[in-house]
């Protein structure tokens, strides 16, 4: 959760440093963006997130994992408030409350629902 949110923030900062990109110069984007320290750090953190995320998907449903990982947004907002002393508006507090409720909803249910039909397909017993 933390790696995804911090990684996205680093990417945003790195891309802001690089300035606007034109769609006809995507080569410049591909060649130069990964060498920006902020973009590179963001990529490393997002790779860590991806490994943890795929592992979770091997034993849980996508509709369980997605809302659960959204709790990272709350962590970042609280870090900003108590570590960076940023202002936390009422709107953001409502956003935090909604995400906490959402995580509570999915955490109270099963992590995985049964998929007999697709499990049979995955086992090679039927067409995709």
């Amino acid at each position, binding site marked *: 959760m933390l790696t995804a949110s911090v990684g*996205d923030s680093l*990417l*945003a900062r790195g*891309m*802001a440093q*690089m*300035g*606007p*990109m034109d*769609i*006809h110069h*995507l080569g410049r*984007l*591909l060649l130069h*963006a990964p060498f920006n320290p902020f*973009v590179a750090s963001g990529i490393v953190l*997002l790779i860590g997130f*991806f490994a943890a995320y*795929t*592992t979770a*998907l*091997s*034993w849980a*449903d*996508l*509709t*369980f*994992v*997605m*809302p659960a990982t*959204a709790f990272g*947004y*709350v962590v970042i*907002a609280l870090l900003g408030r108590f570590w960076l002393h940023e202002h936390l508006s009422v*709107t*953001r507090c*409502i*956003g*935090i*409350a*909604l*995400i906490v*409720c*959402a*995580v509570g*909803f*999915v955490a*109270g*249910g099963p992590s995985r*629902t*049964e*998929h007999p*039909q*697709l499990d049979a397909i*995955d086992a090679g017993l039927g067409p995709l």
Partner: protein
Amino acid sequence: MTITSALSPTLHIWLSIGFVAVLAVCGEVLIAAGMRQLGDLDDIRAVSGLSGAIVAVITNFRFVTGALCMAANFFAMLYALSIANLSLAGPAIAALTYIGNAFAAKLFLREKVDRRRWLATVFVAAGVFLLTR
């Protein structure tokens, strides 16, 4: 006159945001399908070790296709962030991706998205939208 210059800036931004969200949904659904096909990675690691688990993952066709979609999503997101403010692109992409994933999981992964999970998805989309504005 190029296609991008013919579009209004607002439409250009929203098309970019929509494209990023579609790539994210495709990638996540394909990766989830691939990981479900493989089964619990902890079980694979217990039998074949970490290298065996990595090989199993990176040789799964669905996973690789999904990862390619996510790679395309990554560069599309960089492009979107270069033309749109993070305060707009961030919440819009996140909200569209959460809602799109719930529909795609129900349609393609046939997950049983009950009322609890629909509520969670809508709450997260709304919460992220409010939090990042």
